[in-house]
Structure formats: C-alpha cells, structure tokens
C-alpha cells in the first residue's frame, strides 16, 4: 500500500555550503540519503516530495557544521498483514512462486495455493489447473493476500496466499 507521509530527518551540513544555495544542498543531501532506502517502520521510501520545514540550523560546537531537523513529505510503500494486492510473478518452483509488487518481494508457498493447481514442468515451470484454464507463469498477474511480513533493518519480505475467494490469477503474461 502506498502512503504519503511526513517524516523527520536530522542532517548535518558542512560550512562550505553556507551560502545562497544552502536549501538546494539540503534537499539534494536529503534525497540522496533517504530515497531508495527501506525503513522498518514506514516501509520503502520511494521519493521525497518536498521539504516542508528546515528549521534553524544548530551549529555544532567544535566542528562548525550545522544540524538541521528536516520535516519532509515522501511516498512510502509498506505492505500490511491481511492486505489484498496485485503482484507480478517472477519465478515459479515446486515450493511455490515468487512475485513482486514494485520494490516488494512476496512468496506464496504451495500450501497456500488452492489444490486445483498442480506444479507442471512440461515446457517451463508453472502452476496449472487440471483443465489447463488457469496458469501461473513468470509474468502473470496474480491477486494475493499478504498473510505475514518480515521486516529487518533494511528490507521487507512478505508471504502471501491465494487460497481464498476472489484471489488468484488475474491475467496472463503480457
């Protein structure tokens, strides 16, 4: 799920930037440090929308650098348990299949795939229903429910299920 959220960051700026372009430098540093990271609490921080408030920089004693407490708005993505989302399958094996939703990786174990699907290695590894109607191959779009998430310091990993009503293959690969 994508969110727009206001976050805070402390940034230390070297005195060489204390000039007319200080704001730009602050923004540039903020983007460089924060965009593309993953935070356990707020999820993947995709992009900074803008700096709302820089506040007054406090000069550190001894070093001369100024510390700014920045307030900024950014787009984040974090999955939550129980959320239903659409994903794109990336690889299939007999234990289940991997899929991704933007920066997030989700794994669906074969225990959470309905019995109707069988693992088939005829042409390429895939899950297929007995009548051949539905097929899960790399590139197909699948709707799943997130049943659990694991968050460590810099990454989020999720486990999903398609064993419920209205879940499963949405469309064939493009």
């Amino acid at each position: 799920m994508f969110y727009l959220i206001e976050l805070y960051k402390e940034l230390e700026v070297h005195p060489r930037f204390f000039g007319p372009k200080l704001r730009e430098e602050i923004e540039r540093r903020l983007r460089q440090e924060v965009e593309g990271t993953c935070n356990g609490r707020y999820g993947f921080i995709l992009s900074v929308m803008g700096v709302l408030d820089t506040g007054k920089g406090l000069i550190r004693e001894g070093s001369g650098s100024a510390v700014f407490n920045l307030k900024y708005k950014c787009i984040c993505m974090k999955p939550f348990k129980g959320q239903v989302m659409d994903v794109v399958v990336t690889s299939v094996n007999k234990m289940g299949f991997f899929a991704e939703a933007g920066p997030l990786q989700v794994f669906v174990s074969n225990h959470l795939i309905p019995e109707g699907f069988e693992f088939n290695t005829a042409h390429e590894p895939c899950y297929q229903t007995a009548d051949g109607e539905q097929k899960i191959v790399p590139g197909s779009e699948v709707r799943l429910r997130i049943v659990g998430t694991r968050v460590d310091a810099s990454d989020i990993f999720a486990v999903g299920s398609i064993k419920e009503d209205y879940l499963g293959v949405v469309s064939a690969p493009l």
Partner: protein
Amino acid sequence: MPAKVDDEVLGDKDIKVLTISEVACLIDEYVKGTQQRDADYQPNPMLVKAAEYASRFATNKNRDTLQKIREVIAHNQLSELELGLVANLSIETADEARKLVPTLDDRDRFPDDATLDALLKELATYREFE
C-alpha cells in the same frame, strides 16, 4: 472508528493513503520534472520498479478522474486503508468487497449490500471514463 484501523497498521495519525493510479501520476511527474532540471538524473532502482508496477496496475491516468474517485470514496465514510484497497483492487460487487476488505463487512455503515453496491457502481463508472 475508521481511524482506529489505520492507527493499528501504521501507528501514525498523519498518513494519507495513495491509490496506485495516483502514485503512477506522481512518480511520472516527479521523474519528468527532475529530468528537466537535471539532465543526468537517474531515478533510483527502487523508484523505477515502483513506477513500472504503478503504471502496470493503474486504472486510469486522468488527474481529474482520480480526484473525483477520491471524493466519492471520502464521501462515504471509508477509512484511509479501505479507500486505498477499494480503489486499487477495482472491486465490482459487494460480496467481493466484503471478502477482500474484511473491515467493510460492517453492518453499521453498510446495513445491506445495496449501499455498498451503489458505491462500487459509482466508482466503476469513473474507471471506465477515460
């Protein structure tokens, strides 16, 4: 009551949920804008992946339609999360809504399927309106 669900999930009261179509729009503008100002700009890999995902699953590209969709849902006392889920999943029927978004299975706000169905039908018209 709707706000309570949001709190449990993100623990913050100041968040706004974005639908996938809105994210696609925002990222697109952001990348174009930054590329105009700085020709060497390369979006970070995470943003690239997010942009691809968003444009693949976005339901429509028109900004005004997206605004209208948000107004319609907001008008109906849905929490932020429910708003996001209903818009992202392009839900069509009340049964689907109750199954996919369990918090909508609420007899206080939606005493019968008709109210939910009416809301979903209205959203569906905006989705096709491109």
